[in-house]
């Protein structure tokens, strides 16, 4: 009962996901199969990895709008380093991770020392990084490199590398959030910054680290994107920050911070992927407009179903 209560939002999410997945399986032939599910994992790996980083930021009570831009930037940077400067792929990825992490840390430091709200600092970060990405290369850039292709096509068992990376991020993220002091400090920070400070927790270090983690995840996602597309792309990251926030929040994490889980984010990502794929490709609607309406309606349906289940299980608490 205790377990159920504590994880009720996530469990409700899992349940709602299963319901929708089964519904889709009934509706579309061949939907209910392992390869299709694996496809979900690998197709949503980029968004998923970004969302894991975003989960930490939101748990800490902040928000990071720069993730989409950082992801694009990272993919373009890898492309430029590999194709124009002939770097080894791994070195290029290392470089982009370093840049992304440093950028996140910079944003975190700005947020902490100036006291400007994360929304603004990271929005400015988004503009800045997008401009930077255009400056280093105006167009999307194709990556043709045997070593890169070798990594991109690696499979571990029946899983493509991208899917494995996504699951690894979720697993490590979950571990960090639940079992490390750093993770617990993030929850404390989100639950009440002033209180966390008065309790003697390292608020500044945690805050800077959270944005650095998010920058790391976003730039890693950029690397995964290059595996997926074999190119560095400017366009993919546009609007991704909203998708990432949405997945985190439908995964049961409170935007106000302090409550939520990385596992919930996994559900959120899979859910959004399920909705998008089934509507845009399986249903194959003939109108873009109706497609959008259907996506929105399903998303809303999922959120409301989750709410309803949560309430049913926990009962209505002390009214607010």
């Amino acid at each position, binding site marked *: 009962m205790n377990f159920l209560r504590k994880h009720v939002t996530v469990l409700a999410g899992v349940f709602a996901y299963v319901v929708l997945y089964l519904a889709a399986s009934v509706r579309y032939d061949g939907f209910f199969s392992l390869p299709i599910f694996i496809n979900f994992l690998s197709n949503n790996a980029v968004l998923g990895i970004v969302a894991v980083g975003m989960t930490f930021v939101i748990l800490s009570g902040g928000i990071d709008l720069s993730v989409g831009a950082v992801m694009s930037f990272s993919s373009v940077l890898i492309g430029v380093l590999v194709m124009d400067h002939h770097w080894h792929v791994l070195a290029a990825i290392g470089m982009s991770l370093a840049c992304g992490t440093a950028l996140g840390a910079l944003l975190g430091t700005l947020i902490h*020392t100036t006291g400007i709200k994360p929304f*603004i600092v990271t*929005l400015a*970060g988004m503009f800045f990084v997008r401009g930077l990405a255009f400056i280093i290369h*105006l167009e999307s850039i194709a990556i043709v490199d045997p070593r890169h292709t070798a990594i991109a096509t690696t499979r571990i068992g029946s899983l493509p590398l991208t899917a494995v990376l996504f699951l690894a991020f979720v697993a490590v993220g979950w571990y960090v959030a639940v079992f490390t002091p750093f993770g617990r400090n993030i929850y404390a920070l989100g639950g009440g910054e002033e209180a966390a400070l008065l309790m003697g927790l390292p608020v500044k270090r945690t805050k800077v680290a959270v944005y650095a983690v998010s920058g790391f995840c976003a730039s890693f996602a950029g690397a995964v994107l290059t595996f997926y597309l074999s190119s560095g792309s400017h366009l993919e990251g546009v609007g991704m920050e909203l998708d990432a926030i949405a997945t985190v929040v439908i995964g049961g994490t409170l935007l106000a911070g302090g409550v939520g889980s990385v596992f919930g984010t996994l559900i959120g990502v899979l859910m959004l992927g399920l909705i998008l794929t089934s509507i845009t490709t399986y249903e194959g609607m003939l109108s873009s*407009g109706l497609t959008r309406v259907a*996506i929105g309606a399903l998303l809303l349906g999922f959120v409301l179903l989750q*709410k309803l289940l949560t309430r049913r299980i926990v009962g209505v608490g002390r009214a607010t």
Partner: protein
Amino acid sequence: MSPRNFWPLVALVALLVFNLIFTTGFARLEFRDGRLFGALVDIFQNGAPVMLLAVGMTLVIALGGIDLSVGSVMALAGAVAALLMTEQGLSVPVSVAAALGTALVVGALNGALVTYGSVQPIIVTLVTLVMGRGVAQALTQDQKVRFENPSFEFIGNGTVVGLPVPVLIVAVVFVLVALLLRKTATGLYIEATGGNPQAARLCGLRVHTIQMTAYMASGLCAGLAGLIAAADIKEADVANSGLYLELDAILAVVLGGTSLTGGRANLVGSIIGATFIQTLTIMLQMRGVITEHTLIIKAIVALGVCFMQTAAFERLVRRLRPVEGA
């Protein structure tokens, strides 16, 4: 003017002065064909949609919420008005009323889901962001709806005593909302609800009604903005109208000094913020700055203006002027 608008205003004035001196043609203001004409007018004319969005957004943000759907509502309202005029041949007032009604309905939907469904505002309005434009696209079958209708175009293009109509619309909306906020109890109730909803409820405020009203107001403002945008270019462009404007509106509100955590509504600040953004945009366009650089300049300037409103900046200023402070 309250002291909290001091720094945003300083920033705006500084930007204007810079342009008046260094940007050729910026200062020129003339009277042409019965209308005032010049970059300074463009700032308000082109900035009108964002200003309207910012007014509505200020109310929502003061309540600790957020409204991402405004851009889509713009597209939807424009589409509804245009379709009713062209396809159904309805009169302009009826079409306008129907479009604003549609916007109001979306706002009410947002409000209802946030208050009664207790879904987080960002999710609710993200859903309406996706769906709103979808409905608009479905209605127009993905086509731009062109129209030639002088009395409707008047909303976006007309002038009254030399002043562009959009500017007048913004002024009227601003004055109405400002009066409501400062001269009636509404402002107090909104700020109290945003500052501490639990306490507000115990004080007998209709927390739900207040929230509903704010989202509906935001929807209405977005609808108006959508009509202006459509009338301005004589077509309803569902794919592009209002695209990403929600971010501009939020930025305007925050630049104006309203905190995203809610509890304060600074309408004047939001207008200053919107004006600032539009001045910056026009300046970069007039000076022919390329997009890559535009993005970076925007980032740095936005950070700078926000920094001017922080305690850290205040400390810095005090340290730089120790003599006067003592």
